[in-house]
Structures are given as structure tokens and as C-alpha cells.
């Protein structure tokens, strides 16, 4: 069966060309069915009841955790905590772990191409603890090299937090090598997997990263669900910054509280059960497609797109040498938002702006771009249509009013 026929969004919108998969992705029918089934045949809370439908919910919810664990090859199921998304995940570890372990003048290594969700939690930590942020220098293709990481490390460096695959440049960082180097110096590595986990095979034991966070909706799952992975010994030291039901083992009127063990301790309140179930089902779907094949297909599609874009003399591509389906470009002398709105007239969805990487402009020397982000359901045919519209872009201004 054609993959596209498994996506109701593609079936219901025959002329739509969706190139904003780094923002969110469409959901295959089986994910929607899994969520609907929870609401239509066994709605109940998890970890609560002694009756059948609740036990089924437990089984499905914890089953989703096992699916996630296998997908990223974590060692233990307890190392998988459900969150509301990547942002929540980073905040959980910054405010539950690093806030207690980092001291004044300790250094955090980031890059200027990080997404806001991997910058702002650290900014606010620096305000609280007086620690300091340093940026790893990017090379001429805006990539992170091991040499530049090594150069940026000082005796005060305590943590390196990086996207594995960035959301504007689309480069893949050498996380495994960075982890090896960092661990030799006692530095913890946090990996923002928001873009990578959806597009490439990620194996946390192979990478040897200490924490990994990602979101479900960027990988065919529902919104509002994400994952925080941490090596058990580290994750066990993360203090819950949200407390309440479901995460305590016992508490007394005197205020004495004993928390549950991992992962429940970090999942206070009724969880996003439909989200976890939907994510589990999305991962099963991706497993069927095979992550390596997805990546391979996206690279071929990217190569075709970049080649076609470069044939047009009014287009500037900013990340020709990246290793993912993310392509940043502008029509020369046209503001990115005008381009996006022009493409929208032809039912082509691209993102315009700074893509939440607001300090990347220091490196890119340009503030705003149009971004195409491909997924496995995109086709060469869609790229051909985009190119034919971009060829007409000299009428862009006259179409504005």
C-alpha cells in the first residue's frame, strides 16, 4: 500500500503539499485508531483500579513505555519518563537536577543554533545559580566539530546540551564522540532529540548520552506527549518539580512524604494516557518503516530538492551540506514571510521566520529564512510542484493585495 494512503490528512487534502514536518507531522490512521480505541472501549485511569479496563489501560500505558525503551535502546524501562514534550523534558532535568548540582561559575556548553527550548531553561538556571553559558563555535557550514567542542571545554564545564539534529541547519552532531570526550572529563551530556528521534535511528546506549529528550508529535504521534530518558543513576537524582497524585508512595499530615521510585516519581498527576498510547503506536509504525530506510529516503529527497533549488537563480540555500530533510532558503530580496504566504496560495506549507533559533542569526548573518522540512511521506512530485511555483515568484508582490 502507498504510505500516503495511511495518512488521513493527505487523503483529505489532495492538493496540500506539507513541508513543515520539523514543526509537526501528520498522523497515520493506526495512531488515530489507537487513541480512539482508548476513548471508546477502555477509558480509565492508569495505576489505579482493580477492574479490567483499568488493568488494560495500565498494560497499554506501560506497554508504550516498553516500546519507547526498545526504540531508543534504553537499558531499563524505568529510564523512560513521559513528559508533555521536549520543552517539558529539558525543564524537568534543568529544574530537577542541574539546579541542585551546578554552582556559581560552573559552565554550560551550548551552541547558537539551538532551539529556544534548549536555551531558555539554561538562561534561567544561570540567573538562579550564577553559572555561565559558553557557546561552541560552529564551523563554516554551521556544524559542530569535535575539535571545537574540545576547544570550548574548560575545567569548569559541567554539562553540554545539544540538539542531535538541529531544526534550522539540519546538521547531525557527532554525539557519540562528544559523549566520549565529555565523560573523560566528567561532563554530563544532554541531547535534545526533538528532530533526530523522528528521522534517524537513535540508540542511547551506543551514544552513551546521559539524558535524551524528545516529542511525540514530530514523529507521527499525538501532541502533548514526549519522553525524558536518563541513565538510571542520574535520573534517580532528578527531583520532581511537580508533585501530587500518582508520584508519592506515602505521606503524613506532618508533611512527611515518600516518593515512588522511577519513573512514576517524575509523572505527577493523571498522565497523558492517550498521548502515551498514541506515541507507542506511532513508534510501532516507524519500526515497520525502519528508521534507517526513512533517513535514507529523506536524504535522497533532500538531494533532489537542493539540486532543483540550485537550478533557480533567484534562490539562496543556506544549508546545502546538511544531512537531513531540513532545507533553509530564501528567494533573493524577498522577506521570508512573503515567500511563505505566496507558497500558501498554491497550498504549499513552509515555515518562515527564525524557527525559534533566535540567536542563530549571529552565525547565519541572516535573521529569517523559509524552511522546508521533509518526512518520509513527501515525494519528488511535490518538490517539482514547489519548484514550478518558485519559478513564478516574480509575480509574488503583485499577488499580495
Amino acid at each position: 500500500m502507498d504510505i500516503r494512503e495511511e495518512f488521513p490528512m493527505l487523503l483529505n487534502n489532495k492538493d496540500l503539499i506539507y513541508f513543515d514536518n520539523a514543526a509537526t507531522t501528520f498522523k497515520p490512521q493506526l495512531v488515530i485508531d489507537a487513541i480512539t480505541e482508548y476513548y471508546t472501549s477502555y477509558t480509565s485511569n492508569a495505576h489505579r483500579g482493580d477492574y479490567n479496563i483499568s488493568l488494560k489501560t495500565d498494560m497499554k500505558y506501560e506497554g508504550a513505555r516498553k516500546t519507547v525503551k526498545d526504540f531508543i535502546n534504553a537499558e531499563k524501562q524505568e529510564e523512560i519518563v513521559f513528559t508533555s514534550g521536549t520543552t517539558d523534558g529539558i525543564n524537568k532535568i534543568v529544574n530537577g537536577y542541574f539546579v541542585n548540582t551546578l554552582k556559581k561559575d560552573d559552565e554550560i556548553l551550548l551552541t547558537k543554533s539551538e532551539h529556544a527550548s534548549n536555551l531558555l531553561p539554561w538562561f534561567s538556571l544561570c540567573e538562579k545559580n550564577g553559572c555561565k553559558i559558553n557557546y561552541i563555535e560552529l564551523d563554516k557550514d554551521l556544524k559542530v566539530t569535535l575539535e571545537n567542542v574540545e576547544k570550548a571545554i574548560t575545567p569548569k564545564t559541567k554539562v553540554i546540551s545539544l540538539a542531535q539534529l538541529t531544526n534550522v541547519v539540519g546538521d547531525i552532531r557527532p554525539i557519540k564522540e562528544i559523549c566520549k570526550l565529555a565523560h573523560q572529563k566528567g561532563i554530563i551530556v544532554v541531547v535534545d532529540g526533538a528532530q533526530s528521534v523522528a528521522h534517524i535511528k537513535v540508540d542511547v546506549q551506543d551514544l552513551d548520552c546521559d539524558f535524551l529528550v524528545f516529542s511525540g508529535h514530530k514523529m507521527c504521534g499525538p501532541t502533548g506527549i514526549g519522553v525524558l530518558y536518563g541513565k538510571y543513576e542520574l535520573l534517580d537524582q532528578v527531583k520532581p518539580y511537580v508533585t501530587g497524585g500518582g508520584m508519592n508512595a506515602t505521606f503524613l499530615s506532618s508533611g512527611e512524604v515518600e516518593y515512588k521510585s522511577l519513573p512514576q516519581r517524575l509523572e505527577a498527576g493523571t498522565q497523558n494516557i492517550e498521548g502515551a498510547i498514541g506515541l507507542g503506536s506511532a513508534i510501532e509504525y516507524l519500526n515497520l518503516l525502519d528508521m534507517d530506510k526513512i533517513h535514507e529516503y529523506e536524504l535522497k529527497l533532500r538531494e533532489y530538492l537542493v539540486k532543483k533549488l540550485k537550478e533557480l537563480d533567484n534562490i539562496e540555500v543556506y544549508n546545502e551540506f546538511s544531512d537531513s530533510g531540513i532545507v533553509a532558503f530564501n528567494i533573493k530580496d524577498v522577506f521570508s514571510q512573503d515567500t511563505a504566504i505566496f507558497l500558501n496560495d498554491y497550498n504549499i506549507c513552509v515555515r518562515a521566520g527564525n524557527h525559534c533559533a533566535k540567536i542563530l542569526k549571529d552565525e547565519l548573518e541572516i535573521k529569517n529564512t523559509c524552511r522546508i522540512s521533509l518526512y518520509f511521506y513527501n515525494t519528488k512530485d511535490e518538490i517539482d510542484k514547489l519548484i514550478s511555483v518558485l519559478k513564478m515568484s516574480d509575480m509574488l508582490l503583485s499577488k499580495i493585495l
Partner: protein
Amino acid sequence: MNPELKRSILIDNYKNPKNKGLIDDDSYIKINTNNESCIDELDFMIKIEDNIIKDIRFDGEACAISTSTASVMIKTLIGKTVDEALKIIENYQNMIDEKEYDDIILEEAIIYNDIYKQPNRKKCALLPWNGIKDALVSFKNRE
């Protein structure tokens, strides 16, 4: 106004905007507009003397709608009193928000009378005008 003429006014103001580029002069009030819902970012400076708008200048990165309407606004408001300008701005905002408005006093700014049909462009069309309005209101409150 016929669509062709509207378009040519827009393109002219976008490609050759009035008073683009800021200057170093302390007699101006400075305003930064940062559109929360889109990516336009424009800086304005305005000079008011004897309650009359003597000059407005702007700079920044913004879309064709924001840039052109900044230019049109500057042409419309220079020479007006603060109260006249506020009245024009109110009418312009009403036009964008599909409320009743006086089309005569809007001068060239009338070219944006169909923007309401593109909801994703309304914010762009309002950005410069909202920024200048805030500056004029705080100027009045200070006086």
C-alpha cells in the same frame, strides 16, 4: 480604488519606502515594535514639535505589508497634529478590524481595505500603526 492602482502603490512603498533608515538625533522619540505573532521587527523614531508630527523614520526587517504600510503611514501622518494622527490611526485600525471607518481621512492607507480577507496579514498591517499610536498616547499623557 482599482486593484491595479492599489498594488502599484503597495509595491512602490515597499521598494522605495519613505524615510527608511534611522538617524542619530535625541529630539526624536524612539519606538521598537516586535510583533509577537509574526517575525516583523521594525524600529521607529518620531519627532513632535508644537504638537505637530514633524518627522517619522523607521528601519528593520519586515514583510511587504508591514514595510509598505509603515511607509504609507509616515507619508500620511507627517504634518498632522497628534490628535489628528490618533484619529487617522483609529480609523485605520477600524478598517483592518472590519469596523466602521472614515475612508476620506485615511488617504493612501485606504489601499489596505481588503486586508481583512487575509487574517494572517492583519497583524502585519497593524504593526507600524500600533507602534506609533502607543508613542503618541504616551506623548499626550506626558504633556
